[in-house]
């Protein structure tokens, strides 16, 4: 079997080619590693392009009071103190350098009047903090990193003395999907097995270090802003290799997705609309967010429209508008308004910028939102309000990692960065903190993997039995006649997760979701596909479903266990946030075909970081014993 398979040898293999994967690859290559990046799509098409608002980094270009400590504090508040504090610290400290570095790669951010990188307001951030390019910041990030990779390849080609296209020490495998990680006898990473989408032929990567940078899990939900790629591949690969996932119950429902027409339901409407002056209104025209400011945030948010409106131009003397509360709060508020019968005609609420900013300003700051609504919904956002509602956007949970090196728990040689890694964002991520997360921890994972490889005495070997198993599993859907249609099963999984483990959860519903998942797992063993191996989306979906089911089970089991409401996990039957649950991480692992979840205590925060908060504020989150 082994000799028939296309085989490549590398030092560091990066699975995923979004912001985290590309930044990791750059770091590994700059550390001298022979590096490969695997993209599920074409090079440069990753989901990172969907990020619109910006990159959070406390450069202080617009308000010089900003610094890493303020950013750290905002991040912990946004995550309701469940964040891995060391990750939040590293992220806040290093984000500015990572942004400035992008300029040396050729990025062109919007500027301040004195020529620095401009920064915009965003939900949960105390000061204007998001470096941006209109509302297409993710595209700028991905294109910049893509072009940096080409630039490193050109350097290699020059060194090697041949023409401009040689890939040297940094190779990109586009349209290639990894189905299994391969391990040595001792359980260390030895490589990865997958197929080329184009031909359907198998490919084997031998590498002692693998960085997972596969993004999220949104395709398990019906209403989502995520693309077909977001099937939880990295989460599931880590689980099957014996690693663990942290806090999978925390899913971010972005408050503003499109709600009409049905075919675009879930597509993201950037938070920048609110950062730049847009407000939410119900069917009565009321700015309802003033009714939903929770106690923990009262000190930072305005309680009347006049002050909220003054805040846009005078932040020193006014409190911010509650339209910019963290995303979990806004999503729940919208959900409540719709349930109370005060929604918009298509089951959302109104997001209005047309009555608040001039058409010229809107076109300048939100060009792609204008384009998106014009082309897809016949709505001119300079003249009329948008209709928006919550959409599954991001998973806070992910692979349990070491904060400094991004090394995954329990599996030597495995690393994870970006959305697939857990801990950084706690129970809820602030907008803008994702792009900075990708850069900070992508780089750290690349360096961590390079250090690991340099410290190895010998390269872990692999057994051919693993390869045979992986190949047999991958081809199984072709062997079955008259089995289940993968599209049908996927549709039912999405409906079930959306209805039963969605934005508001209840014990009975989550238990029902777990029953459904048991049935789906049985049916998944009988999936059958038509056609051949060459670029066959039905086959690809059948293989991805295995990952979606494993990840969905982790989400449901953790959601059932956590009996409180916090951030991206709201239990109707346990509506309060409980300090006792704050110091508990829920850790998922795989036991045969089933997911299991156990509690694990979180390490206490370092004293100098605790000191950044007042005792009054800490008392809202921590138990009596934890208070300083």
């Amino acid at each position, binding site marked *: 079997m082994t000799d028939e398979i296309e085989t490549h040898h590398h030092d560091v293999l990066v699975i995923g080619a979004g912001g985290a994967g590309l930044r990791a690859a750059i770091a590994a290559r700059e550390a001298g590693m022979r590096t490969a990046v695997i993209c599920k799509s*074409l090079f440069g098409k990753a989901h990172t392009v*969907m990020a619109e608002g910006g990159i959070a980094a406390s450069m202080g270009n617009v308000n010089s009071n900003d610094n890493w400590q303020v950013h750290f504090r905002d991040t912990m508040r946004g995550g309701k103190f469940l964040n891995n504090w060391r990750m939040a610290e590293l992220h806040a400290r290093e984000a500015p350098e990572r942004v400035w570095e992008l300029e040396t790669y050729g990025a062109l951010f919007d500027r301040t009047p004195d020529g620095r990188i401009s920064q915009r307001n965003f939900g949960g951030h105390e000061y204007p903090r998001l470096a941006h390019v209109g509302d297409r910041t993710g*595209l700028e990030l991905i*294109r910049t990193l893509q072009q940096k990779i080409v630039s490193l390849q050109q350097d290699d080609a020059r060194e090697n003395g041949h023409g401009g296209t040689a890939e040297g020490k940094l190779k990109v495998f586009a349209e290639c999907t990894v189905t299994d990680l391969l391990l040595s006898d001792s359980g260390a990473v030895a490589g990865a097995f997958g197929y080329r989408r184009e031909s359907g032929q198998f490919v084997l990567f031998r590498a002692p270090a693998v960085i997972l940078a596969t993004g999220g899990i949104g395709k398990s939900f019906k209403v989502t802003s995520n693309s077909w790629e977001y099937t939880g591949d990295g989460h599931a690969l880590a689980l099957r290799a014996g690693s663990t996932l942290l806090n999978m119950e925390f899913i971010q429902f972005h408050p503003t997705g499109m709600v009409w027409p049905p075919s675009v339901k879930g597509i993201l409407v950037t938070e920048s609309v609110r950062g730049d002056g847009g407000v939410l209104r119900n069917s009565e025209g009321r700015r309802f967010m003033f009714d939903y400011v929770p106690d923990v945030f009262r000190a930072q948010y305005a309680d009347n429209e006049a002050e909220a409106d003054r805040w846009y131009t005078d932040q020193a003397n006014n409190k911010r508008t509650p339209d910019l509360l963290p995303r979990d709060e806004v999503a729940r508020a919208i959900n409540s308004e719709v349930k109370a019968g005060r929604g918009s005609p298509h089951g959302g609420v109104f997001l209005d910028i047309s009555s608040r900013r001039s058409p010229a300003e809107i076109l300048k700051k939100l060009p792609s939102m204008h384009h998106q609504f014009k082309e*897809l919904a016949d709505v001119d956002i300079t003249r009329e309000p948008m209709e928006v509602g919550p959409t599954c956007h991001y998973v806070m949970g992910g692979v349990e990692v070491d904060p400094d090196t991004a090394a995954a728990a329990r599996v030597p040689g495995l690393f994870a960065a970006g959305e697939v890694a857990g801990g950084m964002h706690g129970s809820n991520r602030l907008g803008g903190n994702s792009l900075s997360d990708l850069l900070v921890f992508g780089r750290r994972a690349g360096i961590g993997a390079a250090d690991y490889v340099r410290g190895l005495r010998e390269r872990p070997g692999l057994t051919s039995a693993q390869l045979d198993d992986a190949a047999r599993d991958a081809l199984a859907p072709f062997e079955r006649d008259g089995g289940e249609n993968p*599209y049908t099963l996927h549709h039912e999984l999405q409906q079930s997760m959306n209805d039963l483990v969605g934005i508001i959860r209840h014990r009975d519903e989550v238990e029902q979701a777990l029953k459904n998942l048991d049935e789906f797992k049985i049916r998944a063993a009988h999936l059958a596909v038509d056609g051949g191996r060459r670029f066959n989306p039905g086959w690809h979906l059948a293989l991805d479903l295995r990952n979606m089911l494993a990840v969905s089970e982790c989400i449901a089991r953790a959601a059932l266990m956590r009996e409180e409401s916090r951030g991206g996990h709201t239990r109707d039957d346990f509506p309060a946030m409980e300090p006792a649950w704050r110091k508990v991480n829920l850790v998922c692992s795989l036991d045969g075909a089933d997911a299991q979840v156990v509690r694990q205590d979180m390490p206490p925060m370092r004293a100098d970081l605790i000191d950044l908060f007042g005792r009054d504020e800490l008392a809202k989150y921590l138990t009596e014993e934890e208070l300083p």
Partner: protein
Amino acid sequence: MSYHGSFRVWRGDAEGGDLADYEVEVNDGEVVLDIVHRLQATQAGDLAVRWNCKAGKCGSCSAEINGRPRLMCMTRMSTFAESETVTVTPMRTFPVIKDLVTDVSFNYTKAAQVPSFAPPAGVAPGEYRMAQVDVERSQEFRKCIECFLCQDTCHVVRDHEENKQAFAGPRFLMRIAELDMHPLDALDRKRQAQDEHGLGFCNITKCCSEVCPEHIKITDNALIPMKERVVDRKYDPLVRLGRTILRRD
């Protein structure tokens, strides 16, 4: 509101293929990509198509719809009459892999041949200073989502395989213009655009700008200004013609 629409979709691979006829349900507000997805889910599970964001931001779902290069995710069904047959074919300029998926590696080869951004010497990270008005020119070109529809439609390569070697195509000539207009880029790229990337092949028919889903003025703002700068050193009759016809100063 829903109806049954008639579709013809090219099915096949490098060895050959043909248009296949389908009757598919069409619902209110749908785009062509929704119809292709419904075909996959109900009638043709192995129908090959690229797509990612479904919001016109990633540039994956390029194809030719009734012969016109377009993104499937941004082509609304309401632009066709209910009785009209909608024909979807792969981009013609690139070799077919399967069904609507083509081999676009030509574009990645060309991208690798454009010298990268050259950072200015002696300016530390964090010390870059640029005026908004100066970055805006290049920012327009950086809106490009690399859907390659401009490459597909450009007649220099669309029916002239022999030109592919010497011509980078509008997308990458625009990339050179973008770098040339970058306020801090340290290289001079004009000569290179003409001599190595085939800027002279372009006879400014603006087909690329017409199909650009991002509405980038590729010809007016990138290619013609590049030609004008090249001509400072080298005479090019087309630029003079272009100036006359288009009344550009």
